[in-house]
């Protein structure tokens, strides 16, 4: 599941804002975008709730106090003249004169780097031994209470295990879990009725 990205666009130029909004909504959903024509307007509205900021070079420099600590979450728009001297600008700088394809690519790089679609090793999809035990009991038709009693754990813990199992496997129903358990030899077909 992708998380909603809350983005503040701080740009005086309406067309730039509308264009960016279009790209973000079409290519990087889900996003929620707030637009502020001036930096002052953005400050007055509780600015730290945003995941990302998009602004131009002038505003960035003028409000460096705010943006510098947040520079990893900020995209700065440049027009190509400013960027020409240096072909390899930092990845969070986007030239407004670039072709659309390039801009999309740059936005993609930025969000991948920053947001980290949770990488697979930090979020292990394998079930733990405990989860397997819980799964075995679920597919045998045990209630949460029975599972808790059998494994000497609290009802809350059982629920947490169930939630984790569902998230890891992407399967919600008991029938689905049963199927998974048989397929993967967690339980043998004779143990339960399908």
């Amino acid at each position, binding site marked *: 599941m992708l998380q909603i990205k809350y983005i503040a666009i701080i740009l005086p130029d309406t067309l730039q804002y509308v264009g960016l909004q279009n790209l973000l909504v079409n290519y990087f959903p889900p996003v929620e975008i707030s637009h502020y024509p001036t930096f002052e307007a953005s400050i007055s509205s509780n600015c730290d709730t945003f995941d990302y900021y998009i602004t131009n070079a002038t505003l960035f420099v003028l409000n460096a106090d705010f943006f510098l600590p947040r520079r990893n979450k900020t995209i700065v728009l440049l027009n190509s003249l400013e960027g020409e001297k240096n072909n390899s600008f930092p990845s969070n700088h986007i030239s407004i004169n670039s072709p659309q394809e390039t801009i999309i690519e740059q936005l993609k790089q930025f969000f991948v780097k920053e947001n980290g679609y949770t990488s697979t090793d930090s979020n292990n999809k394998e079930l733990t031994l405990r989860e397997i035990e819980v799964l075995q009991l679920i597919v045998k038709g045990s209630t949460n209470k029975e599972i808790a009693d059998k494994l000497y754990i609290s009802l809350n813990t059982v629920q947490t295990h169930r939630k984790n199992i569902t998230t890891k496997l*992407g399967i919600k129903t008991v*029938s689905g879990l049963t*199927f998974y358990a*048989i*397929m993967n030899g967690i339980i043998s077909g004779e143990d339960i009725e399908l």
Partner: protein
Amino acid sequence: MPLVYANMQMSEVVEEHTSLIPVINRFGIHLGLGDKSVQEICDKYQLDCDFFLTVINTFLNEEYFPEKKLQTFHTSQIIDYLTKTNQFYLRDQLPNIERHLQLFIKQSLPGNNSLSLIGKFFLSFKEELNDRIQKDQEEWFPYCLSLSEKLKSIQQIKILDKKQINIHIESEDTIEALLADLKSIMIKHLSGDYNENLCYAVIFALNSLEKDIKQHNRIRYRILTPIVRAMEELCS
């Protein structure tokens, strides 16, 4: 997605969205639409154009769901539509999936046990859906109709005006959940050799059933259920 309007040419709408074909069939409309507008077609088939358009538009747009408007339609109209979707599941979509699935299992065997398990899982889903449809036809729909018959003298719109309709969305619909799991199991957990073409056919058929059932459930839980609750309160 832009909404469909009464003055649009029906054939153009359907060409753009072929997934509407089973939906218009449900209303009794057959292909061979010619150049007629949506309004003309509705007149020809004696359909309430407003209702027809609302159903089509909610079918096409996941975000579009005009609750207030849908609740102004007559209970019998809504039940009639839900009944037709149920029949469509029984007569067309379930057999479709089953046909593909049987072929898929047969062509991919021997030796792939996971597929026959998928077959079994589908059967348990089918049973669940059959049960629900049977209950609809035998108990729930007749009950809803009898309520609305009782209140015939009072205009339905007024009923709904008086009662603050409390929308209670069923947090989890078993049918939808089973269907989602079936799809996700095939996509995430399939193993061994299998026939790719038939596998896609099965997933495609599951997907179109899932889409239809989601739409059915939206009407069921967010329109019919609240109307029935309001009628129950008035009758008691």
